[in-house]
């Protein structure tokens, strides 16, 4: 009798970890960036960032359209897309990485490092980003921020506008994941 119960429990455990339930997704993640200088502050938001997490592998992938960043002023949007990021040539920014020591079953908040490759403007850099991961009733929220240096991604700012753009841009992200429907 005990063996049967163990067998049933085992079956529940195995089927509970099938491949489809290992993947979580958001198609409406939020990424914002800020450039603070004494001349002006620039802020932009993208509310349609795609991200998928594979819990079994501890892997995370992020992809966003650069022309979907919304600015307060249309001229900033134009400069960003046409001169700096060149979104016609490099329409997407991506990140692919691993969450180090990720514990998918832990509830509440955990703080982890994510290590991976960040690609902006066609240039890939290895980065380490700190994130908080909150697990509430099977939905996961990742929140964090990091800094990126404009020069690292070969983004050319004309000398006349150099005082307006910070050398280091601060980037914030917020992703709320749901179980992945294929």
């Amino acid at each position, binding site marked *: 009798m005990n063996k049967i119960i163990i067998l049933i429990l085992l079956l529940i455990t195995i089927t509970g970890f099938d491949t489809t339930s290992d993947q979580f*997704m958001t*198609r*409406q993640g*939020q990424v914002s960036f800020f450039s603070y200088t004494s001349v002006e502050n620039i802020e932009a938001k993208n*509310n*349609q960032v*795609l991200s998928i997490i594979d819990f079994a592998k501890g892997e995370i992938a992020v*992809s*966003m*359209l650069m*022309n*979907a960043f*919304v*600015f*307060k*002023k*249309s001229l900033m*949007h*134009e400069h960003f897309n046409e001169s700096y990021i060149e979104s016609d040539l490099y*329409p*997407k920014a991506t990140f692919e990485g691993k969450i180090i020591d990720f514990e998918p079953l832990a509830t509440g908040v955990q703080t982890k490092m994510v290590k991976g490759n960040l690609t902006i403007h066609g240039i890939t850099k290895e980065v380490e980003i700190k994130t908080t991961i909150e697990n509430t009733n099977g939905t996961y929220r990742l929140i964090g921020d990091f800094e990126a240096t404009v020069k690292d991604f070969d983004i050319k700012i004309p000398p006349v506008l150099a005082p307006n753009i910070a050398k280091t841009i601060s980037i914030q992200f*917020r992703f*709320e994941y749901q179980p992945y*429907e*294929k």
Partner: protein
Amino acid sequence: MVGLYIYFGVYNNRVDDIKNVSPEVKIDSGQLVSSFILNEENANSVYRNKVVEIDGTVKEINFYNNRNTVLLYGHTKYTSVLCDMQSDQIENVKKLTKGQKVKLKGICKGFLKDAILLNCVLINNDQINE
């Protein structure tokens, strides 16, 4: 002439109201997603940064990130056209129901897992209200 109008209406003032801008392309939501999946580069050259009018069926309405978002079914039930609605559309967006057929227009930004449109306005509902 239409080109000039769109140029001044969208490119010079692209964060503003597109209600009065004529769509450059009209397409069904399923066909839009299919064309991106078939050949993203080609679809980008046709739809990207253009005002597109879409016919589709409401798959989901949500308010994540304090935005009003309407998802239309793509070519399968797992794909979609993700429409970020203009803020003045909130009352009309709230009235939408899953499965409802709608017509809207917005600026196509490209494709990730879904086709993405920003600054969207409903067309049918506008006509009813005005």
